């Protein structure tokens, strides 16, 4: 994997953010407002170095060796037989471009968004540290460094979710995310153990060579893949380890944009794409991942319907879109899955950043019911949100259209009609709830001055909405007048337009496309198009998806966007808030079923339903596993009676067993 050599630029890419983090961390109080530009500069350096190293990533090896692509640098011989290094191939390139490119824009945006916050330097130190951790994850050429990066991004995410640690809800959300991420880390840990047990190495190359050499017997490969996937599911918020993601919106909005939308949560997609030879070797593993991805896509979309918090809507849409990616790489459409990651990074970052502009403009209001009519007030935000929403819905010819259709159609090609149906249905639901958000937020009249109760907002703290009750701490420190110039926040969003609109064109042209040419050396023949595998053509599929999307938009228009709906929007929203349960009965029963399976009903139903069931499901499953293990633990404890004679007897028994064995061995 990769042409061996010395690539000093890779270290620049990797360590520049780390240096930024250290500098800001150490000198933060002195740097004050300079920490923002320094943080940006560190990421910028990394991004420029990425562009400069482009050629290394796509360079093919000697003629004939098609699988050798990119660069490989051995860093250090860790222990004899365990060499660690950096890997730089097209797959890494794609991720690094997003991490440093979109990461730079978000850092830039943060200079405006976080302006005046008491923790301004701390924020940039954490953000730089996160970028460093994420780069560690994607640059690793082995599972150990990958796992370290995997753990570090979890840690950075923990710090950033709990950035406003004065708020108990932020601390709780951070803890929850951390615990679930540790579950994932342990999954990867076991995969590493299995790999070491099978191939005696931790490097990707050896692990994949083992698949070719059929070193894994029986279900071992599936178990290894499943263990890896536990890590992916936790990091990428896949069912049933998804519930931390909506809560993670407690962090500042740029954090949500960078970590919980564009980069970290897609680490699972990266890992599966990176380990594609293993998945190619196990059909069961592909089945598992595809199904979980499809389920997550659907469930995320359904749960997105019922949200009122603008960031939570986006969080559920993220979960749903990552479900698409996971489904894509799960069924074997690696290029499609990675493309969807690529385009999603643009439009989801744009959605979050635009939401941040709106939230900022409304003094930290996050409840869409208290917005409305912002089209005239915030025209830039409106157009930005509209374009990004169209992109996420898969409206041609925006970026999301190409990537989503690629994933959805590939499920059919690879022989998963059920997943295909889920993909198409989810596209419709996505269009519905995204336009619901757009209509409620930007159309009609402004409802911010209306009494919350008349909008049906009864328990804003439970609903996870701020509703003016939870002021961000930085607001108290800095009055509104001191806000940074607006262009700091709009300029990055303007740049993101380019990706949101045009990124999909990279895939234009089938096997001649830029995208195919980029990734084909990585994935080889597995992504080559197969003729006649699907009952109808890709064009027909796109048309079908487009019709469903239009239907979703139309439904949203009828319910929220039509003149009649806008006229009595207050009453309608109030009605919907109160009657939320029947609307989402299905999602609720799904959760309740799992609830009844795993949890004793003693746990009170205390929180709003979208959040409610998930902690129960997770805790319940964990508890069941624990109970059975504890039972064994108690069994062993009961041997420990405290009586010396019982101990002596145990020892005599052990000794007797030894003696019998040695008598037999000695007498043979």
């Amino acid at each position: 994997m990769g042409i061996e050599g010395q690539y000093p630029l890779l270290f620049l890419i990797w360590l520049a953010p780390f240096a930024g983090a250290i500098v800001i961390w150490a000198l933060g109080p002195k740097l004050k407002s300079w920490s923002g530009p320094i943080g940006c500069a560190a990421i910028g350096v990394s991004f420029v170095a990425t562009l400069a190293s482009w050629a290394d990533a796509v360079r093919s090896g000697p003629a004939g060796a098609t699988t050798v692509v990119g660069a490989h640098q051995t860093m250090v011989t860790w222990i004899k037989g365990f060499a660690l290094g950096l890997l730089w191939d097209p797959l890494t390139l794609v991720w690094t471009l997003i991490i440093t490119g979109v990461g730079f824009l978000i850092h830039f945006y943060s200079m405006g968004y976080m302006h005046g916050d008491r923790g301004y330097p701390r924020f940039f130190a954490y953000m730089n540290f996160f970028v460093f951790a994420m780069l560690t994850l994607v640059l690793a050429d082995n599972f150990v460094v990958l796992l370290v990066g995997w753990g570090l991004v979890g840690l950075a995410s923990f710090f950033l979710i709990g950035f406003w640690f004065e708020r108990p809800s932020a601390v709780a959300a951070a803890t929850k995310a951390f615990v679930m991420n540790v579950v994932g880390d342990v999954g990867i840990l076991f995969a590493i153990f299995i790999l070491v047990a099978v191939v005696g190495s931790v490097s990707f190359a050896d692990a994949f060579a083992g698949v070719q050499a059929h070193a894994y017997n029986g279900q071992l490969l599936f178990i290894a893949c499943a263990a890896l996937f536990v890590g992916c599911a936790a990091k990428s918020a896949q069912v049933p380890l998804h519930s931390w993601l909506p809560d993670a919106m407690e962090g500042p909005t740029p954090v949500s944009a960078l970590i919980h939308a564009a980069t970290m949560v897609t680490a699972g997609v990266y890992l599966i794409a990176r380990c594609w030879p293993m998945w190619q070797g196990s059909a069961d593993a592909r089945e598992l991942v595809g199904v979980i991805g499809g389920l997550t896509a659907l469930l995320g979309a359904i749960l997105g319907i019922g949200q009122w918090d603008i960031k939570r809507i986006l969080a559920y849409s993220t979960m749903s879109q990552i479900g698409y990616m996971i489904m894509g790489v799960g069924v074997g459409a690696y290029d499609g899955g990675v493309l969807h990651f690529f385009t999603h990074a643009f439009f989801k970052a744009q959605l979050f950043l635009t939401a941040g502009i709106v939230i900022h403009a409304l003094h930290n209001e996050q409840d869409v019911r208290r917005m409305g009519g912002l089209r005239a007030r915030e025209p830039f935000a409106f157009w930005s949100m509209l374009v990004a929403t169209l992109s996420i819905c898969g409206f041609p010819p925006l970026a999301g259209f190409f990537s989503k259709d690629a994933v959805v159609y590939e499920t059919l090609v690879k022989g998963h009609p059920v997943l295909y149906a889920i993909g198409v249905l989810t596209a419709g639901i996505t269009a519905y709830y995204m336009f619901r958000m757009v209509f409620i937020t930007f159309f009609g009249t402004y409802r911010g001055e209306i009494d919350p109760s008349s909008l049906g907002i009864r328990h804003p703290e439970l609903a996870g909405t701020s509703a003016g009750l939870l002021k961000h701490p930085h607001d108290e420190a800095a009055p509104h007048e001191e806000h940074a110039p607006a262009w700091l926040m709009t300029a990055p969003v303007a740049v993101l337009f380019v990706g949101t609109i045009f990124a999909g064109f990279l895939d234009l042209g089938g096997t001649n496309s830029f995208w195919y040419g980029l990734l084909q050396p990585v994935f080889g023949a597995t992504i080559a198009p197969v003729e006649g595998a699907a009952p109808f053509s890709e064009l027909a599929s796109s048309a079908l998806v487009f019709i469903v999307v239009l239907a979703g938009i139309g439904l949203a228009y009828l319910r929220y966007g039509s003149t009649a709906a806008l006229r009595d929007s207050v009453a309608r929203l109030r009605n919907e808030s109160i009657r939320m349960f029947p609307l989402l009965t299905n999602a609720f029963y799904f959760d309740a079923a799992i609830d009844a399976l795993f949890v004793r009903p003693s746990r009170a139903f205390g929180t709003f339903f979208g959040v409610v069931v998930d902690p129960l499901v997770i805790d319940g499953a964990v508890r069941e596993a624990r109970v059975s293990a504890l039972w064994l633990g108690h069994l062993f404890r009961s041997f420990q009676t405290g009586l010396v004679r019982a101990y002596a007897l145990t020892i005599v028994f052990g000794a007797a067993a030894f003696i019998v064995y040695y008598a037999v061995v000695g007498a043979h």
Partner: protein
Amino acid sequence: MSVALANYIALSAVIFMIGAAGVVLRRNPLVMLMAIELMWNAANLAFVAYARASMNNAGHIFAFLVITVAAAEAAIGLAIVVIVFRRAEFVDVDEVSVLKG
């Protein structure tokens, strides 16, 4: 008038078993310590017998060391028994089971 080495070893094995049985079955710590002394003496007998068989007095030295260590061990053991049972109602190891689980 000669005795086979095997007889000595068999005898020592019997003593060793009796000692082990004593540790497991008796509840008086002093008797348990005495049973342990029996086990160690069984080993000593084996050492001396094997030393005689191979005409190597390393076995004698070993037995001598064992006796020395046994003396030290008995002193410490008895001191511990005294501090444990000085105020106890019963001199019985079954009564000593605060630590368990």
